[in-house]
């Protein structure tokens, strides 16, 4: 169970970056909703886990935040992707694809390939 959340933390960061890349600045709730829509049940519970991830990304300089007005004109914190974040997204995407393809190939391995 614990392992699962750790994996989630990493993927969650990537999802945040990608979502901001595609949709532009969003507030926390907006982000949570989009990720929920796309990923299904990953954030169905524990939407709150998003916030420590946001803070870490902000510390790393991948995203920036500022106060703005939400749809119903309330104060909300808006996050946007920075130049550095864009670069980070590209790098991580490449890593991810590489990892995925390697793992994918391993899953396709049959007994005769290894003998």
């Amino acid at each position, binding site marked *: 169970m614990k392992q699962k959340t750790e994996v989630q933390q990493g993927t969650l960061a990537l999802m945040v970056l990608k979502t901001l890349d595609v949709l532009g600045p969003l507030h926390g709730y907006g982000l*949570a909703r989009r990720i929920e829509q796309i990923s299904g049940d990953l954030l169905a519970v*524990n*939407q*709150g886990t998003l916030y*420590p991830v946001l803070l870490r990304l902000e510390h790393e300089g991948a995203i920036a935040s500022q106060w703005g007005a939400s749809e*119903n004109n309330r104060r909300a914190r808006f996050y946007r992707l920075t130049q550095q974040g864009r670069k980070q997204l590209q790098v991580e995407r490449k890593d991810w694809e590489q990892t995925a393809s390697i793992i994918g190939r391993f899953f396709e391995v049959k007994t005769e390939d290894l003998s």
Partner: protein
Amino acid sequence: MKSLRRFLNRLFNSGTQRAQEERLREEIAEHIALQSEENLRAGLSPVEARRQAMLKFGSVEAMKQDYRAERGLPFFENLLGDLRNALRSISRMPGLAAVIILSLAIGIGVNTTILSWIQLIRLEPLPAVSGASSFLVVEPRTDTGGYPGASWLEYRALQTQLPALRDLLASEMVPFNVGEKGQTERTHGQLVSGNYFSALGLKPAIGRFIRPEEVERPGTEPVIVISYDYWQTRFRGAPEVVGQKLRVNERDLTIIGVAPREFQGTMPPLKFELWAPATMTPALLGGARDLDDRTSRAFSLIGMLKPGATREEAQTEFTTAMVQLTGDYPEANAGITGEILPFWQAPRGPQRLLMTGLAILQGVMLLLLLAVCGNTANLMLARGSTRQREMAVRVALGAGRWRIVSLVLSENMLLALLGAGLGVAMAVWGTTALRIAPMIGAFPIQFQTRVDGLTLAFAILLGVACGLIFSAAPAVHLARLDPQEGLREVSNTPPRSRARKVLMAAEVGLAMVVLIAAALFLQSFRSARQTDPRFRPEGVLLASYDLSGRNPNEASEREFAARLLERLRSLPDVEAAAIATNVPVDLHGIPARTFTVEGRVRIEPGQDRAITNTVTPGYFKVMGILLLEGNDFAEMQDKAAPAQAIVNEEFVRRYLNGADAIGRSLQARARSFTIIGVARNAVYNSFGEPAQPAIYFSYRDVPAMQGELHLKTRTGNETALTSEARAVLRDVDPMLPLYDVRTFSQHIERNLYLRRIPARMFAVLGPLLLGLAAIGIYAVVSYAVARRTKEIGLRLAFGATSGRVVLQIIRENLGVIIWGTAIGWVLALVISVRVITKGPVDVPVFIGVPAILLSVATLACWLPARRASRIDPMAALRHE
């Protein structure tokens, strides 16, 4: 890069905790509000909508934990928390904290001050010259072990013959009379070689320095460099000083530049004000033949090794060169070899002597600091035990061992660093106080000690070390605490702490060593002050004159002294007057000379030596030195009498086996003297010295350029003679200044200056340490007694008298203290015999100091014991 940025952000966040917390709170509220709205739209009831939103968000507290962990740096936050906690707990014990901080400050301050002295002498011997510690002194050495200095021609030869040295610098110390006729002022300067300033790597404050080509031909470049202080005080720092004329020894010299602010010449701690080309010697010193006379060894040589060269190589080259010089010039260089030594071992300066003294002082003061640490550890341990409950609660609530240790550590470190900070402040004050230049003998000296990076680092290191030392015991004690045990009622008699007793013994032992060292030092200082000098300094005025600018000869010197004395003796207030070349108890010492005397055959190799002073008739009367046999010297004008000498009792005892001395002939100074009298022994170089053999010569036979006037007043007020003496000298020679005027008592005081500094240090620190030890013992005993209230109450209830209770408590603790004292006593005895006195043991000190320490310790035990014995047994038993 990324992680650095994250780290910096987090560090920053640690400071802005509140704003961050607020931001998160707001974000969560907004998130839940938006989710609730959506749930409402989906048709849920408002209450249910909000409940669902909260559920979906998940655990707010768990998330906040994560968020906080991400936001700040738990390590630093804990540290900050610890520090805040430490500050609070220190402010709850102001008295104890003050004792600890002050005692540490004194210990660290004294050690830092001493280190700054060692640093000055060992590492930065030449202020304003960087890398000065790597300079070497190049010293010709006679076969009798004297260091006469080098002649100018020798210097020129050595310059090319010592390839292992990068530069060889020569300088000669000279007194200058600066100013117009009738109002000259005595100022000390150096005559220097052409490479002097460039090899020292100095940059002038303004103007320029002496160029090498200005030190090629004798006497053609009348230029002079002045010191920064001289520039500031005599020319008010005016930049126009460059190009102005300065009248020096009746010659006009052009000021070409000002030396850097701290530069004081190359013979520390002497402080020079003027530097002129060495080739000006004949012009400035009335035709002195220093430049072409190989027997005139007036120059001091220093040099620095070339990269890669060693001192041994330089020494070999030097020895070879000196052997060659002996072959080439046997009449001037016979028996002269040479030594190359590190700067701080210069045989003709006080450095070597000071280093030994300072090293011992530093050792003793480090022991003092260690004793202070022991004391502090004990105080903290006693206090820590009263905090057992607090710590037990912390452990019970989940604090790890490391948290407890770091809590104790941060508290003690804070105390230690506060102490170190205050200690540095004291060291800064101490070093500046010591910088004030006193005149010692005729020379101004200055020790430019300071607190800089190195000394600061030393102070902080001492602080940290102290903190660690006195944290160790309480930290270990508290970290080992079992929370269940600690939470139980305190009066459950705890196991008696061995750590506390060992600490108490160690502290008392260290205090013993330091106190004995202090007492030995004070004792030697006091005995120095109280010894009968065997001459009478009361009512005697001293003043110096110097004819060296006059190119005098024996006849003119003799004539001058006779005329001066005649005039001085005619003054109504002068009871007696005399001139001597040396004054006893001078910091520079009185020279000793080799001699042979009729009736003495020396069996062992080497030559006999005796202290020599050259005096005029009347000297023994002024000084109150009794002539036991024979008569005073013949009058100055007497041309008939043969050359005369007067010896002292010790001379007769040692070299003539007490036989009759009068009439024997004595060979010294390359001529023959007849002994005409025997004088009482006196003190010559330092108080408390063993009796020294001495020979007095007469000014009539061997006149000198310099003279120290000794005037005995008739009225009892010797200072009143000053103006009269000046007037007489001005009458005899208007250009000649009378300098270094002082009473004999001032002369003695001034020359005890260097011994007085450590004496004062010990006089203050000794009682202080005794007080600290008493406080330490008191704290430990009263703590131990408090823990045993119930037991004591029980014994009182069963009929024990309070006297017996007191006696038992004292006996228990005094046992430990006596152990510590005994170990310290033995240690001190070993140190005393091996290092400090190297002689007989000072019995009163070795009995008196332990007696004082033990009585103070007994008192410190008795006070809490008596208090304990007065408790009401019923109250004590109900204590639980």
